[in-house]
């Protein structure tokens, strides 16, 4: 498969996988943001909850990286700047999920 086509397809695959997990997350979001410290710890002491949130972090940032590169393709003409933009997004999309998932694992220990 052509490289660009496979990137396009993977972005959509991530999108489809995100639909159910994100719906699950949205219906917990209002509680989550109003939890007390202990309630929040209790929520993250559940392996299922941690697994789903980790999955959201991985899928969402994978989807975002590919989506952003489509936008850069549309609007950044200079190849060097585009590469730099893609590289920054790649960095963000690795650092944030790794930080969040590591923190959740430490909390659960």
């Amino acid at each position, binding site marked *: 498969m052509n490289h660009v086509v496979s990137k396009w397809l993977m972005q*959509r695959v991530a*999108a*489809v996988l*995100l*639909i159910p997990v*994100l*719906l699950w997350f*949205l*219906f917990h*979001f*209002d509680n*989550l*943001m*109003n939890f*007390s*410290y202990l309630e*929040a*710890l209790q929520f*993250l002491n559940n392996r299922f909850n941690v697994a789903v*949130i980790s999955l959201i*972090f991985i899928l*969402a*940032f994978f989807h*975002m990286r590919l*989506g952003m590169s489509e*936008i850069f*393709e*549309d*609007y950044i*003409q*200079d*190849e*060097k700047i585009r590469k730099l933009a893609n590289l920054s997004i790649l960095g963000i999309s690795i650092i*944030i999920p790794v*930080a*969040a998932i590591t*923190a*959740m694992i*430490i*909390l659960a220990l």
Partner: protein
Amino acid sequence: MSSKSPLSPHLQVYKWQLSSLLSITHRMTSVFNLAGMIFLTLWILLLISGQNTFSYFEMFSSSFIGKFIFVGITWSFSYHLLNGIRHLFWDLGYGYDLKVANLSGIIVLLSSFVLTFLVWFI
């Protein structure tokens, strides 16, 4: 790829209509969604840093601005998710008829508010 690839026409050249408005909203909500993920990350990192530090988050989330931002992020995720489904149908080759595309756009817009309402008030 050559360094002089063609650019997409910039936003100000378009005549405003529902389809373009919904399309730019899709891209704008992707940025708000990133903000939402960053809030979630902060929430987790503040939890790990202890009860005292976490109390700042509790202060923020109980404030009017905090609530406004969280309801806004919920809408942003709802819109991007629902309009994303609309995009997936286009990717499969369905829904290009002008009437259908306008109707699906209106349905997505209304449903995004309904979903936000369901999440926060039910």
